[in-house]
């Protein structure tokens, strides 16, 4: 009896997998190592180490402990930044204020634009990674800044620090987290005539997942361009009120960010407290959040934090980021289950991530007999890597540093291959690519070829201890047992699968083919690693 009880307690402690009312029995999970690979990519942006794969292969239940380790990994914060970029889309390649405005050289274009665009994302990521209440993203009196931003904006960045640090604006802007960041409002700008309506729409979209801009604007017979009431239509015309009754009161709280010149860096970088009350006058509304009056932006942040839809949206955003698809009615139960610990434990988004990454919808690798077509079409049994993920993986594996005139080529669209490699550009492409295409394939090819070269040069250098090609030296050929050891180790590490004998011999044939074609052993080894970095099981997860 005691043993049974202890066993059951152990089962509980390992985390009960949440139920999936959408026929969970038809969702077959990935193998332990492949699941670990998926989880590591999603939580850390890198592949599991060989020892981690070995551990999960031997003890699949150890993935729970690994999950906890990875949630605490410093790279988790970076991953959340990328996850939110795919949803908030602030990391664009140009803003109205430019490096030219600040007298900086064009070499700093990328650094400047990314710093600006990532500010709100890093605030969110820091809240999530440090187990703060998610409500802090709209109530915090701090932001995240790096030396670039600190040199340009009114920020009290820690003296002597480097990288992204908690900082505070010094221009009297209210304590409303991301709602007080230049990065968010430079991305979702609002020229004077727009009167902050676009920003209000962004608040609805990003924080409570209500895309008011997608509602149809039908200027029907009730509206006449001959009538002066046209200008009052947004307050009187039912067609307009459907959106504007919510938008205007929120927009009225944002006038401290209104620029009189929306191209001026001086106007854009500083909060303007004297303009706070303009909104009520110009828009002729009382500031409010969904019908409940607020006195200003700070109360708006608090009202949003108290809105159940804010919680729902956080859960939805994280869930969709992990499942790599939009949620729909079939996910209601999963979202409800993910919401419970989130709400009950102080709004720590890690609780949502913990639960979702245990759900069948996340762990699914294939379908059992009886899966409906709808299930087959919906569930992401496989996801393709996109440029932002490839960047972190190849940097970790190989030290890839693919840049052009200061632009990270897997993280920009101006000169590089972010969108061509399947990621989001923030303006036109609002979701990651979900099926491979030509440009994606070529992007992965170039990155893979270069990374392979870097790995080979590192691992097979004289006296080096190989990290990926374990046991191989520059003299190793397919005739050597060390070849099998090395390629098997690489296959395992990169694909989270054990290669078969034919898999190994296939790579051996490739190696030899390159040499026969006139290549050096280095060329041959590079080809072997390159094809692994382009393998269907590498580029998907």
């Amino acid at each position, binding site marked *: 009896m005691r043993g049974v009880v202890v066993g059951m307690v152990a089962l509980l402690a390992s985390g009960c997998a949440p139920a999936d009312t959408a026929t969970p029995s038809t969702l077959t999970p990935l193998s332990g190592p492949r699941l670990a690979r998926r989880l590591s990519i999603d939580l850390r942006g890198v592949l599991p180490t060989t020892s981690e794969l070995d551990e999960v292969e031997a003890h699949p239940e150890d993935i729970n402990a690994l999950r906890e380790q990875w949630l605490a990994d410093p790279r988790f914060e970076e991953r959340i930044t990328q996850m939110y970029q795919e949803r908030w889309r602030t990391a664009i390649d140009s803003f109205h204020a430019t490096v030219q405005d600040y007298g900086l050289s064009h070499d700093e274009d990328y650094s400047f634009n990314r710093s600006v665009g990532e500010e709100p994302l890093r605030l969110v990521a820091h809240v999530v990674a440090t187990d703060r209440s998610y409500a802090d993203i709209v109530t915090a009196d701090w932001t995240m800044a790096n030396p670039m931003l600190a040199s340009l904006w009114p920020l009290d960045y820690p003296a002597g620090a480097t990288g992204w640090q908690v900082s505070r604006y010094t221009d009297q802007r209210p304590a409303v987290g991301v709602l007080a960041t230049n990065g968010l409002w430079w991305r979702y700008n609002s020229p004077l005539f727009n009167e902050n309506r676009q920003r209000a729409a962004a608040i609805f979209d990003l924080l409570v997942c209500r895309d008011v801009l997608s509602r149809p604007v039908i200027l029907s017979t009730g509206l006449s361009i001959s009538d002066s009431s046209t200008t009052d239509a947004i307050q009187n015309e039912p067609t307009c009120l459907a959106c504007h009754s919510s938008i205007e009161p929120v927009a009225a709280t944002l006038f401290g960010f209104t620029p009189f010149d929306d191209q001026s860096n001086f106007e854009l970088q500083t909060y303007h407290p004297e303009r706070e009350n303009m909104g009520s006058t110009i828009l002729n509304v009382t500031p409010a959040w969904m019908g409940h009056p607020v006195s200003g932006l700070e109360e708006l942040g608090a009202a949003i934090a108290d809105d159940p839809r804010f919680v729902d949206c956080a859960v939805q955003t994280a869930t969709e980021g992990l499942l790599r698809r939009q949620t729909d009615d079939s996910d209601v139960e999963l979202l409800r289950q993910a919401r419970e610990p989130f709400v009950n434990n102080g709004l720590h988004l890690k609780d949502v991530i913990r639960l979702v990454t245990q759900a069948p919808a996340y762990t699914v690798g294939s379908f059992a007999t009886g899966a409906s077509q709808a299930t087959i079409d919906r569930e992401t049994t496989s996801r393709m890597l996109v440029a932002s993920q490839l960047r972190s993986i190849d940097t970790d594996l190989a030290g890839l540093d693919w840049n052009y005139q200061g632009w990270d080529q897997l993280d920009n669209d101006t000169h590089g291959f972010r969108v061509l490699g399947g990621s989001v550009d923030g303006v036109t492409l609002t979701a990651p690519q979900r099926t491979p*295409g030509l440009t994606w394939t070529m992007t992965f090819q170039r990155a893979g070829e270069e990374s392979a070269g870097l790995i080979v040069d590192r691992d097979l250098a004289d006296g080096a201890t190989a990290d990926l090609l374990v046991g191989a030296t520059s003299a190793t050929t397919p005739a050597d047992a060390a070849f099998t050891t090395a390629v098997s180790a690489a296959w395992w590490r990169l694909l989270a699968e054990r290669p078969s004998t034919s898999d190994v011999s296939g790579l051996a044939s490739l190696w030899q083919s390159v040499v026969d074609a006139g290549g050096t052993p280095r060329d041959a080894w590079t080809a072997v690693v390159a094809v692994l970095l382009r393998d269907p099981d590498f580029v998907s997860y």
Partner: protein
Amino acid sequence: MPVITRRDLMRLLPASMLAGLGLSRLARADVGANDRKFLFVFAQGGWDPTWVYAPEFDNQYVDMPTDDSQKVSQNGLTWVSSTTRPSVDAFMSTYASRTAIVNGLEVRSIAHERCRRLLFTGGTDAEANDFPTRLAMGAPSHLPLGNVVLSGPSYSDSTASGVVRVGESGQLGTLIDGSCATGGTQTLRVPSSTLGAPEDAYLLARAQKAAGAASAGAQSRISQAYLTALQDEPAVTSMASLLTVNGQDPLDQMLAAVTLLSNGASRCATVADLGLNRVTWDSHSQVSIQSTHFELLFANLVTLMQTLESTPGTVGATLADEITVVVWSEMGRYPQLNASLGKDHWTTTSMMLVGGGIRGGQVIGGYDSNMGGVPVIPETGASDPDGTSGGVVLQPVHLGATLLTLAGLDPVEAFGTDVAPILGLLAQ
């Protein structure tokens, strides 16, 4: 790699096409639906139809251009003519028989990002595929560059594999030829074709195996699309020069698109026009700049049509018989000037269809007294101002259905039975 401008290539093209393709000048043949190709020219930012398409001089509540603009009708077209926009007159008078103007298209949003999606996909669904991609994926045989986006928006979800973006700086060409490898702190390794061939062969075999073993759903979609892309790579590599478009000049891009469409590599192409100095058409102040924007656009369109009409088609007499040019913008502009002498956003706009398969010499739709869209009877294209004869207010989805019909694809499958194609736009 030497840079060949699009203009150079087009001067050479007729002879090179004949030589390369081994074709003699064909007698005119009917262009079938399967042979249709499409070039989308997107005026980004929201143009003001009152400068060209909408001669609303009789509407006292519409601020028309204050230059010497006047209403002109010729060969079935009616437009706003001005000596400051001679290219508009030149285009309309020369290509009227191939041109249909559509007025009163209701996009039903006034937010740029949403309007772009509405225009290109017919809806706001984030997972919807745009018309060019649908057309490309509906081609009778697989095209490695089905839908080429030289510039401008593109929306695809399940058919992302059918879209090829050239990149803001035309960087796709550098990806293909490997020149993307240089200029950074690391010089990327680009294997020679000889040494790369074993890699490619191995990878192809792996991809084929993966596609064959893939389980249904996402795994199958991804592995199959990856295999297709790998199979397409050699053909695309040989077309690297065609995909290396230097600069952002819209005419260069249009002509590059023509080359891609005419040599069978693509079915659709998209080019964005950002107007004078690339300030976009979003004229919230000084709307008079639209005059220059339109003049530049139509000058390019004249050159484009000259090229299409002087270049033999693969099936039709000329490319102008095969390629349908869609010229549109994501929104219109409010009928009245604002305090900055500009015009703000408006949900109703105009567009133009030119060339292959289009019944030219007509203006379809119109603007009512409130600058809303006048209903149109889909079967005939006739206006139905009272809406009592089965007319519908045109939305982008109707244009999408029309284009799919023109391409021999089923619009019902794409948009359902409630969306009728505007058959009145199509030539018999």
